[in-house]
């Protein structure tokens, strides 16, 4: 049940819980209670909206930054990750296996703003050894959603 609710909400956080209950063959109260519990347990961490900013007048630049750091005694990567994720312009921070340590996803208004953040704030942190910044040029698919316009139903409208 939980898994089904989560799978559903992950695709559509606006889903009407009454309708969801109908589709899962259970009562609205059950689904509501389950959702509330999962919110309390912080399994559900938020209800976001997937926005295609390219279709608006708002200017936005997104960058992926690979960061190599020196882990600190007793604290590993957690301390440095915290220092980075507390900046509001940082969207996501992941600890990564492989050639570098942290993947930082950053959003700014302009290239200059992002560059300034990397050179002034990120690179100057004590434990940061190096950074490599990649700007996103085009979003084809984000969070499981293909950004290209949906094609029309091409099926023959009435068939046996």
């Amino acid at each position: 049940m939980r898994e089904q609710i989560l799978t559903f909400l992950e695709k559509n956080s606006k889903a009407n819980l009454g309708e969801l209950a109908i589709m899962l063959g259970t009562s609205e109260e059950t689904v509501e209670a389950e959702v509330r519990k999962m919110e309390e347990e912080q399994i559900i961490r938020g209800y976001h909206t997937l926005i295609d900013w390219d279709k608006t007048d708002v200017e936005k630049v997104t960058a992926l930054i690979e960061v190599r750091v020196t882990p600190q005694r007793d604290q590993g990567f957690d301390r440095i990750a915290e220092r980075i994720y507390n900046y509001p312009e940082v969207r996501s921070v992941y600890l990564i296996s492989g050639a570098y340590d942290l993947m930082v996803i950053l959003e700014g208004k302009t290239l200059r703003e992002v560059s300034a953040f990397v050179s002034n704030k990120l690179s100057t942190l004590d434990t940061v050894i190096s950074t490599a910044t990649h700007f996103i040029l085009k979003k084809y698919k984000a969070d499981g959603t293909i950004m290209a316009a949906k094609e029309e139903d091409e099926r023959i409208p009435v068939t046996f």
Partner: protein
Amino acid sequence: MKKAIADKAAALKPSGIRKFFDIVSEMEDVISLGVGEPDFDTPWAIRDEGIYTLEKGRTFYTSNSGLKQLREEIARYLRRRFELSYHPLKEILVTVGGSEGIDLAFRAMLDPGDEVLVPQPSYVSYVPCVSMAGGVPVPVPLKAENDFRLKRSDLEGLVNEKTKILVMPFPNNPTGAVMERDDLEEIAQFVLENDLYVLSDEIYAELTYTGKPHVSIAQLPGMQERTILINGFSKAYAMTGWRLGYACGPEHIVKEMVKIHQFCIMCAPTNSQYAAIAALRDCDEQVEEMRQAYDGRRRFLLHTFKQMGLPCFEPFGAFYVFPCIREFGMTSEEFATRLLREEKVAVVPGDAFGDCGEGFIRISYAYSIDALKKAMDRIDAFISRLRAQR
């Protein structure tokens, strides 16, 4: 000039939905709930395999019965899903959709005048295929009070010495009815007593919502040697346009079907056959995801009909619901035509699937939940208006 058309062909009734199709294509903003195929795209792993196969230049005929690897995968699949055991090289034939398998079975098995029991409402091709093969189709009306399951009592009195094959169209298009193990046991007993063969069309086998796996009549004792099992990739893997199905049965029957298939088709499309191997190997999860999506929509429709007060039994298979519209005092066709003209929702009149489908309409839920919601609002408006007028 001599008469061009054979009597047999001329006697075939044209498809009952042609008229609808013509109206729908002229209208705008129609929501069609008339489609008999999945709304999902074929899972990417399958499409990718199709592309790869073309890149590799695998564009030749395969053996008449189909690629050996594919038949082996089909045999493994039938064992894993339905505990059925077929010899991949002797008892499985890969066909152009399930439809070809149906046609081949009748042509291989029927002598002139042999009778075939066809439970209805059901898919429209059994009756013409039987006729073209020289057989005599005998409709078996299924009853709404039995949730359109086939009962032994439906068959009593319809069998004579010419009766040869019983068609088993379950999970059923258009009603969504399924046959569970105890339903099948009763029928299997009847088949054995009357020495019949069975053509079991299980194209919707993956799409059932009983919580238990689909049971094939071929699983029951003594039945496999009397059953031609039809299945395919169209519904479970959303592969309708790939045109790929298969028929399984006793070696001596399949051998004759292969002969006919060889002369009229040669082999099923090579590209589709390679893609189907990927489907059977890698796509269980996607099939289950699609099944769950259909199940949610099915529950949504049943709930909505209940609220509208439109009687509808709970169907546990395929992707159709089959509500009853008798209360409005019109034929299924009148109802469907008015619904289309007045509310721009296309459904298929139940009598298109046999006379006993009169009084019902087939609604497909191979659509997004948003489209279904919109369509249900329109149907609600339509029937409220009809009720207010009475």
